[in-house]
């Protein structure tokens, strides 16, 4: 279709779509949509000499020991346990509030002590970390539903702080040791 006016000839834009498609496909292929996700943890600072003292003040009953050996088996409070039971076990321990004299006094004092072998598989370790985190999430959710009628994740900052104070997540990892079994 020739224009009757003399002037700039019309640029054919028909191939524009093709060019754009080409670029689009390039970006579609190279794009990585995955958001990095993970379990956030804080490492304890390197121990200093004087720090040893306050360890003795924690009663043994307030500590929930979880050991993982090189065959990925769990020893919880001296007994063999399956990973699937760990969450309930931890919840029961944290929320004991002094009912069982051999378990924790209250959630604020409860400490979970985690120790793994050098031969433990990373997958098992993460799963244990995950189960323990899930126990705390459940307890915090219950508490916030009771207090504020909302789930923990929906609370505002000050409310969150309050709940966190009720259920501080205390997962301590002992200095690395070799528990039973070769690597």
């Amino acid at each position, binding site marked *: 279709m020739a224009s009757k006016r003399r002037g700039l000839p019309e640029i054919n834009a028909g191939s524009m779509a093709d060019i754009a498609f080409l670029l689009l496909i390039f970006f579609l292929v190279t794009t990585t949509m995955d958001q*990095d996700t993970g379990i*956030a943890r804080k490492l304890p600072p390197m121990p200093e000499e004087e720090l040893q003292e306050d360890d003795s003040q924690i009663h043994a009953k307030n500590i929930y020991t979880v050991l993982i050996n090189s065959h990925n088996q769990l020893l919880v409070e001296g007994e063999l346990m399956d990973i699937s039971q760990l969450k309930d076990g931890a919840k029961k321990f944290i929320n004991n509030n002094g009912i069982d004299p051999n378990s924790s006094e209250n959630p604020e004092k409860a400490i979970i002590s985690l120790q793994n072998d050098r031969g433990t598989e990373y997958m098992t370790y993460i799963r244990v970390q995950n189960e323990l985190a899930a126990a705390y999430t459940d307890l915090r959710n219950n508490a916030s539903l009771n207090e504020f009628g909302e789930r923990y994740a929906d609370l505002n900052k000050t409310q969150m702080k309050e709940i966190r104070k009720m259920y501080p997540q205390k997962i301590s990892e002992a200095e690395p040791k070799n528990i039973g079994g070769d690597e």
Partner: protein
Amino acid sequence: MSKFRKDGKKRMPAISTASLPDIVFMLLFFFMVTTVMRETTLFVSVTTPQATEIKKLKKKSLVSYIYIGSPVKRMQSSYGTAARIQLNDAFASVDEIQEFIAAEREARDEKEIPYMTTSIKADETVKMGIITDVKQELRKANALKINYSTRKGTY
């Protein structure tokens, strides 16, 4: 223009494709903006373990990555299959981690240093020994905020 035309054949009107480039361009810009090019080439194969209690890692610019896993196929002839640590674009030994953290800190603003996170991207089959070593080094370097990289999933 009569509404009810009676004459002869009906022809399908041609669909205008004039707006097609616009649509495609819109998609193109969306992908251009969201795309993240991979910065490092992975020399180790990493399949992160699954977990449910995961958090999103914010502020990507403040995250340093440590990859741990067995070398990829084409590197196995020269490096074997034992799990190795990769920092930036090269294999590294455990004692290089402190240097790596120092270099990462140097590259950031001083104010941002307390918010820096180290993401441990380890393969699920790796043994804890190497990870414990890495964690000890991070403690020595005082890089205490860590993140175990995991996928979302249930057991």
